[in-house]
């Protein structure tokens, strides 16, 4: 504290400690806030299936679909929210891929289908200040919906789910799943 440099050092270190404490308090103030919401999703009836090549010799199932998505996620923005990452995911079971995960062993407390394939069809980042109201009509999927075999044709346990990461300034990064939308797939290409 006897020289200007040592005082500068002390002020800087002290202010960083205060900033860290405030950030922790900010995390505490939002740690128990409910991050759920209830978006609605529906798919137009015409799901188009075809076989396509995906880096290989075999034909793989490729689905094309259009969906509506309505959601008001404004309530998820509080002072500890940096951005939201919203995904639309398809979950389905095939004979090839029965995956046993921790989720299947432990008692399930959230609405995830159990043994599953998960394919992300669409996503969007909603930053702080952007409109958090999603109103998609007949939106095409952002990513190709490929199966790793012929598992899509006639698949009856297909479900779509909306989920979102609430990206905080400080704290946990929760991934929250909405309810499922059931979507039986057609039996023909």
């Amino acid at each position, binding site marked *: 504290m006897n020289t200007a440099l040592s*005082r500068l050092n*002390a002020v800087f270190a*002290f202010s960083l400690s205060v900033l860290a404490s*405030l950030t922790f308090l900010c995390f505490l103030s939002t740690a128990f806030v409910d991050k759920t919401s209830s978006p609605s999703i529906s798919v137009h009836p015409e799901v188009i299936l075809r076989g396509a090549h995906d880096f290989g010799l075999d034909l793989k199932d490729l689905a094309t679909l259009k969906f509506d998505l309505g959601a008001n996620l404004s309530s998820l923005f*509080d*002072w500890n929210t940096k951005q939201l990452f919203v995904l639309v995911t398809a979950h389905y079971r095939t004979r090839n891929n029965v995956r046993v995960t921790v989720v299947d062993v432990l008692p399930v407390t959230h609405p995830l289908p159990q043994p599953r394939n998960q394919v992300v069809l669409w996503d969007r980042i909603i930053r702080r200040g952007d409109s958090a109201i999603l109103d998609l009509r007949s939106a095409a999927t952002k990513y190709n919906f490929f199966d790793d075999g012929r598992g899509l044709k006639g698949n009856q346990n297909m479900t779509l789910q909306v989920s979102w990461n609430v990206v905080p300034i400080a704290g946990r990064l929760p991934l929250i799943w909405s309810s499922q939308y059931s979507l039986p797939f057609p039996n023909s290409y």
Partner: protein
Amino acid sequence: MGNFVSGTPLISYIANKFPSMDYEGQRLAEKCYQWIIVLFGVVGFIWGYFCQQYIQTVYVLGAGVLLATLLVIPPWPMFRRHPLQWQNSRKGRQGRQDKAKTS
């Protein structure tokens, strides 16, 4: 009275040009910056919660840090009110004899 700062020649040259705080001044300076930064932090926290924007908290805290820096870093006269009372230097033969005895 300058104080000795070692290190990079340019920095130590500049630093040694400034007078230093006395002990009481250092105590006062430390209390000053701690109170200012904590006060601005608390006010900024409340303001940021009110606005629901954490960046506002950071801005208010930043203003407090700036104020504390301006107030505390330069050795203002208010931090130099209690200079150390040094013993007068001894001159002449008497001083040299004392030195010889003690050493």
